[in-house]
């Protein structure tokens, strides 16, 4: 009787220790759902969804505080993926938050730039290089095309330019051919 009690309580202590250790060692710091949603979002950090960045939007979706159709850069495909992940019905993009646009990058007209640094402060991904009273320029590969740098510019020297199709980013098109008409 005593040995059985000892074995059981011993087991309880050992398993408790293992569980306690595991809960510390394998602790999931953040809500994994937020991470999964954030991985689908395009990381433009443009704020068109009404949240200050993609992560806050992902957090809001996970908490059920935001709908899945508020991200224009993600487009229909993004909505589709979110719907699949969350097991809800896909819906069309909410036009209130803007229309999807072709992928663009910001370009600074370096002749006009006065070096005010306002765009640098606005850029959510630090993709603008420059210093006070020095010319600024956009690091094109790091620009997400969020447009947030356009309005602060006091001399209106930033324009959004769509990324042209080149051999490097050219894609094979979906095959288009005629099906034989049934007679």
């Amino acid at each position, binding site marked *: 009787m005593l040995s059985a009690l000892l074995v059981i309580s011993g087991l309880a202590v050992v398993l408790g220790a293992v569980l306690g250790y595991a809960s510390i060692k394998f602790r999931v710091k953040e*809500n994994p759902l937020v991470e999964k949603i954030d991985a689908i979002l395009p990381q433009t950090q443009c704020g068109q969804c009404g949240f200050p960045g993609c992560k806050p939007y992902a957090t809001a979706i996970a908490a059920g505080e935001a709908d899945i159709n508020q991200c224009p850069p993600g487009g229909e495909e993004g909505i589709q993926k979110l719907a699949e992940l969350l097991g809800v019905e896909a819906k069309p993009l909410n036009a209130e938050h803007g229309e999807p646009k072709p992928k663009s990058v910001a370009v600074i007209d370096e002749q006009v730039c006065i070096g005010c640094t306002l765009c640098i402060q606005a850029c959510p991904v630090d993709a603008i290089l420059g210093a006070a009273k020095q010319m600024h320029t956009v690091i094109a590969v790091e620009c997400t095309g969020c447009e947030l740098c*356009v309005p602060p510019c006091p001399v*209106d020297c930033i324009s959004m330019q769509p990324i042209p199709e080149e051999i490097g980013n050219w894609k094979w098109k979906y*095959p288009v051919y005629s*099906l*034989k008409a049934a007679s």
Partner: protein
Amino acid sequence: MRTLHTFNGGVHPAQHKDESNRHAIAPVPLPPLLTIPLHQHIGNSAIPLVKPGDHVLKGQMIGQADGYVSAAVHASTSGTVRAVEMHAMPHPSGLPDLCITLEPDGEERRIEHGALDYREMDPSALRNRLRDAGVVGLGGAVFPSFIKLNPSSKQKLQTLILNGAECEPWITCDDMLMRERAGEIIKGIEVMAFMLRPEEILVGIEDNKPEAIAAMRAACAQSSLPIEVVAVPTIYPGGGAKQLIKVLTGKEPPSDGRSTDIGVQCFNVATAYTIHRAVNFGEPVISRIVTITGNVAQPQNFEALIGTPVEHLVALAGGAKSNTNDYIMGGPMMGHSLPSPQVPVVKATNCIIAGSPALFQPAPPAMPCIRCSRCAEACPAELQPMDLYWFARGKNFGKAQEYSLFDCIECGCCTYVCPSNIPLVQYYRFAKSEIWAREKEKEAADLARERHEFRQFRLERDKQERAEKLAQKAASKIETLAASGEPDMDAKKASILAAVERAKAKKAGITPQNVDNLPPEKLKEIAEIEARRAKLRQAAHQPMPTESSGGEG
């Protein structure tokens, strides 16, 4: 006698080799202009080293390799650089790319070349010389050869395979090269063997090229290396690297690996030739053998300078017949149409076929897939083409990848046998390029996330640092004030408050000054983005819901 193996499927399209292999390789007179693209290889575009007006010598480097996976580009003849600009390319997209236009001076003055004493050279220096000589795989993939010539420290190379199979119909450039320059190919193989130290060296040639096999065997007899020339059965795509490796060794490279993982490395015979020229003569890749065939008066092989316009070669082959409606680069199975006959010959140009409706009937209208599985029987990569077709058509790319889409070599056997005439390979190409584009987008998104998170961290850190500094300053100020025994603290406080109020009022009054002369749509756009920014500011000031409070918690 070596036991040969077989691969799954394959097809036997009409050969059409005799049209162009009855004449010797012909030299090409200098064209009036050469257009030399800077991107003729897999990897990064070469960086231009010349500007319009520069005079260059034959063999001078005009484009420098950029990064590891890249290769140099050279002036094909001496002359003057006329332009560094976008020009039509022999690419399925028909899009232009950066090219150097060279006007030959007709003098053909060469830059000083020296042979390399490769046996005494540092292996890495030798590989760099090959990169700077612009040596790339001439079988069609144009992958920089120096990378493949870097022996793996983990896996000993058992077999070095030289690919002279040339399985695509119509093409005879490797056939003619082997017939006429077998000795030089063997010299190139000797350099490769020195760099890679393989246990055995095999040259695989399809048995429809008896002259080439005989010439190569005769040349091998002269060499000190034990090189074996193996005649392999003629079946398309027997010249695919994976298929030739399977036939010669019975081994299959792993799906997600390289042939070196199973101790095999494979090069085209023309690549061996250019390595010989580069190492033993110091001569960069400025020309290649091109088959001009199909609907031309006199099909033939030419040794064309890189950058020669295709139409110049077609004219030399007796000109295209009047019903020519298309020019195909490569073979009829894997090649693609050229956007115009003005595009230049590049390192990948093995063959130009003038097409006519009589030679290549337009594909009949496609009919629905009947799941007859003939494509699966023909597939040399042992895939399920009909399943891949459904996934690619439905844009179910994840599933397509699960079904090993990337093992597809785009040989076209499935399209060739499809009784419903479905352009299957087009679907696979579409799916592959979509998947690549998505991967690139994902990488860009990950970079943006990382940068955004760091920015948030930086802003927070700066704020804290500033607050600490201010607190310190204030503390020291109070101390000094207390020490000096200033009585008028309240007056000071009042003046500070007044200054803060003034600053606030001023800030509220500021409006952007430079929107007066803007068009209304621009104003509207700015207003929209401003509204968004205001929302962002507001949101940033509100306490954020903590992350653990949402979802499943």
